[in-house]
């Protein structure tokens, strides 16, 4: 990534620790953490991918706190070092409102506390950083209330929905999209621990991690065929951390199916690939070490240079370096992937000079 190209990094994980969240939590939820030893049950039944678990080992904060938990260190190691123009925070780690199983009340309380903490400790502290509204989307009505509460914050650019085992295109969840559209927010989808293997975990981490794009494909297919983008024409969907090399297959497959089976989804007024081109964007990370020829072949198959946006996924173990992850592309295309595509996608990100 040459210096003269600005960067919008579409996936940066800030991390909260329980003790930091307490001051933002209402009772009795604070009490449940402080006095009743509640911690989130979240476990991947695998060997960890790297020395520091799922984080870059060199991103652990020098004082021992977990990677992503300190703004100053993130500024030094990522934002200043790379020279970010903008970065989108996608948090969602433990304690995550999206992984609360049946305890919706705690999940909604965590979401509100998380948003207040995110605004206070990150968005208000670094002008480059923009945020994601965390919601307990499994409790639709509480999610809508939370979007109404913080969605108009000038630096909140999207509502974050987890990719787990709920298909968000279901009309039951459409009030969430209505609220997002009202506040000029996009939808960001990021996987948590999706059951990619017929609703279960595969035997090995390498299988699970290879198959994550299938969980992303399911959500995009579901959102499109359920008519979300026909119903909410100003809504956009950013698919985060699933990669992008499956895009041509999805477009071809959905278009072919649409030609044969349109009668089942008569609300679609455009062919699925056109909906994807207009409304759906994909983060590049984790990229697959394509050479320039293969990369350009994919772009040609997509039929547009505007669907993919660069992401580092800092501080996770499969981080993509803006300098090394993609092949050496032509300047105009680089500018789109590193900056313009994301800038054009998020209406609340200002022009560089306005900042």
């Amino acid at each position, binding site marked *: 990534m040459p210096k003269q190209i600005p960067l919008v990094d579409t996936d940066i994980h800030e991390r909260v620790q329980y003790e930091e969240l307490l001051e933002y939590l209402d009772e009795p939820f604070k009490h449940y953490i402080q006095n009743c030893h509640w911690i989130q049950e979240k476990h991947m039944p695998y060997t960890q991918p790297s*020395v520091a678990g799922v984080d870059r080992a060199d991103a652990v904060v020098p004082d021992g706190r977990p990677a992503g938990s300190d703004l100053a260190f993130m500024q030094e190691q990522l934002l200043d070092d790379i020279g970010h123009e903008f970065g989108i925070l996608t948090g969602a780690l433990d304690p995550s409102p999206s992984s609360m199983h049946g305890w919706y009340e705690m999940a909604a309380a965590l979401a509100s506390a998380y948003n207040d903490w995110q605004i206070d400790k990150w968005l208000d502290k670094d002008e480059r950083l923009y945020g994601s509204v965390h919601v307990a989307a499994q409790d639709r009505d509480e999610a809508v209330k939370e979007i109404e509460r913080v969605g108009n914050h000038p630096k909140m650019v999207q509502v974050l929905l987890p990719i787990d085992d709920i298909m968000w295109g279901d009309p039951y969840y459409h009030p969430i999209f209505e609220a997002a559209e009202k506040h000029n927010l996009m939808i960001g989808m990021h996987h948590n621990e999706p059951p990619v293997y017929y609703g279960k975990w595969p035997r090995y981490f390498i299988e699970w991690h290879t198959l994550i794009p299938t969980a992303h494909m399911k959500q995009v297919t579901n959102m499109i065929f359920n008519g979300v983008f026909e119903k909410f024409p100003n809504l956009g969907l950013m698919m985060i951390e699933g990669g992008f090399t499956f895009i041509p297959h999805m477009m071809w497959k959905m278009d072919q199916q649409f030609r044969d089976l349109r009668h089942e989804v008569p609300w679609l007024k455009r062919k699925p690939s056109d909906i994807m081109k207009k409304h759906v964007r994909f983060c590049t990370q984790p990229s697959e070490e394509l050479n320039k020829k293969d990369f350009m072949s994919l772009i040609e198959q997509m039929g547009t240079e505007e669907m993919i946006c660069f992401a580092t996924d800092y501080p996770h173990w*499969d981080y993509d370096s803006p300098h090394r992850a993609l092949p050496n592309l032509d300047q105009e295309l680089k500018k789109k992937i590193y900056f313009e595509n994301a800038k054009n996608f998020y209406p609340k990100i200002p022009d560089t000079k306005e900042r």
Partner: protein
Amino acid sequence: MKEQVVCKTTDIQPGEMMESFFGKQNVLICRTPDGKFYAFMNQCNHQGAPLHKGMICGATTEQSEPGEYHYCHKGEILRCPWHGREFDIKNEGRMLANPDKKLPSFNVRVEDEDVIVYK
């Protein structure tokens, strides 16, 4: 820079590593359990991670049948701190998953207690 003392032998225990400099070049000095020293460029050839933040460990080898594990080469494998790629210290820093790729390396000799990297 033709040669340079990069550390003392006592600075690194067998099975450990440390970063140092050979001129302006950031290098990684590894010491295998047999006491020998090796030097590589301290940057992963994939995306540039600082290798000294990774680990030295052993490897499960490709000689396994499905379902079989053999943990060997203990203390001879360098594992990247980002994506977890494994490099064989005693086999020219070759990557286990693709031995055609290897880490750039430097010559090393030991004189008394000095570990010397040279071209």
